[in-house]
């Protein structure tokens, strides 16, 4: 555990000394503030637009951070050969992968807290603050944790550019995978239905984590959704990270 924490805190330190993090964070903060101006130009409820854009910004910039930093975390260590001195120390390789994951998760947590704080400040100033928004942010954070696990999985066997493409595609697919169920219902039967079912089960379902609509519009959330989403993240994340660890365990660093 000590070793995982050592690697995690070093990863966190690496991320917070990385310019790309600040670049994305500044963009996010500007975007969240920009929602105010946008709301003046649009017909409709100012409150909804500010909340909608704010949550969307937190989600989008969080995902970009998770993917861009996530895919480079492991591959950078291999490319720059810093990994040689790490895995030759008395640690297991899976501890390295988990340490990297936890370090990035910590970075994303701090990142999300900063964005949310800023978002809330603007909402307070406008008089729109609503504690239910924090639920939406919690769900966004769960999604980031899953995306990070996927980014690390891809980077354990692929180049950074391909890993970024894979992770971004899977992020998009993950938000559309619910439509596989619709497609399955339309199909008359046989192999097509079966393929849809398998794909639906295997691909990540990131829409589970999307409660922005409900929160912004003040509608009720399905019962047990938060618990289900948390369990889904735990299960799916565990499988993805285990796969990453297994691949890493057998990897040649040449």
């Amino acid at each position: 555990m000590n070793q995982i924490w050592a690697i995690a805190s070093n990863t966190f330190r690496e991320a917070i000394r990385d310019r790309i993090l600040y670049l994305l964070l500044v963009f996010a903060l500007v975007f969240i503030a920009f929602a105010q101006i946008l709301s003046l130009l649009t017909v409709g409820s100012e409150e909804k637009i500010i909340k909608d854009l704010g949550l969307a910004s937190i989600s989008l910039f969080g995902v970009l951070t998770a993917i861009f930093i996530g895919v480079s975390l492991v591959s950078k260590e291999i490319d720059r050969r810093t990994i040689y001195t790490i895995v030759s120390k008395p640690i297991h390789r899976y501890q390295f992968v988990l340490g990297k994951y936890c370090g990035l998760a910590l970075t994303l947590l701090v990142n999300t807290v900063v964005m949310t704080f800023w978002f809330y400040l603007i909402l307070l100033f406008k008089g729109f603050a609503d504690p239910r928004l924090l639920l939406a942010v919690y769900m966004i954070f769960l999604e980031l944790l899953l995306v990070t696990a996927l980014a690390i999985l891809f980077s354990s066997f692929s180049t950074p550019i391909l890993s970024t493409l894979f992770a971004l595609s899977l992020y998009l697919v993950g938000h559309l995978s619910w439509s596989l169920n619709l497609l399955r219902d339309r199909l008359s039967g046989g192999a097509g239905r079966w393929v849809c079912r398998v794909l639906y089960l295997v691909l990540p379902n990131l829409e589970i984590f999307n409660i922005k609509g409900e929160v912004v519009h003040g509608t009720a959330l399905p019962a047990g959704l938060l618990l289900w989403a948390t369990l889904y993240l735990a299960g799916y994340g565990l499988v993805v990270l285990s796969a990453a660890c297994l691949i890493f365990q057998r990897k040649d660093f040449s």
Partner: protein
Amino acid sequence: MPPVLEISRISKSYRTSFSLRKYWILRDLSFSVEPGEIFGFIGPNGAGKTTTIKLVMDLIRSDGGTIRIFGRSHREVGTKARIGFLPENPYFYDYLTAREFLDFYGRLFGFSRAVREAKTKALLEKVGLGNRGDRQLRKFSKGMLQRIGLAQALINDPELVILDEPMSGLDPVGRREVRDLILSLKQAGKTVFFSTHILSDTEQICDRVGILSKGDLKAVGKVSQLLAHEAKFYEVTFSGLSADGLPGVESVVSRDGGETLVRARDEAAVRALVEAVLRRGGTLKSVAPQRESLEDLFLREIQR
């Protein structure tokens, strides 16, 4: 006492991405490193030295064969805790300061904060970076990186130290420092296994060497045993007379002012030559037997 490092019949091949042809980097390599010795692993670039070290450090997996360190599997975490390792051309986390860097490695060994602080301070002093502890590694020169790399390799006070090309890219002063450090490790009872292609250093400090070429171990043993004892030839310098007509002269190497340097084949030839020079009123300046150097041996072995 069992060998500290025992490599038996390891092989490593790789396949190119397109054609599935197998290329062998190492084939059936076997040797061992004994407790308390300095073992130099020498060979030209591409001989397989780094591959061997990576196999030992479990960075890559072999196709076959076994590696045992302290009589146990090299994969065991407990084994790794007793080894110090410096890779070739090391790159480190350049966003860390030297102190943070060593502290991080100390944490990988699970040392307490107080132990880490003490070790970091002592090691920075030992490698001559005592006043650079708070500088980020990105501002370090190559020589300084090599030193901090050595410091991380020693953080656990290892019994076996494995260094991959520790002298490459260093200036003569830096090479001298690394050499002294290796000798001081031996004095402290450690075993050192290092690869290099800088032969002069090897000859001076190694107890034993292994010569690797194209994945094969060409020779292994004590430097003094591997090198031929008898002089290959003698060089005799004299002045005051010309080399013409002197007995025992195989060839004239140079003439500089009044001095002549000639080559003689063996002891008998030298004796005849020296007597003739003295008899004819010349002045004898020097007689130097030329023995085989490690470089000669190395070149002979890799061309075999």
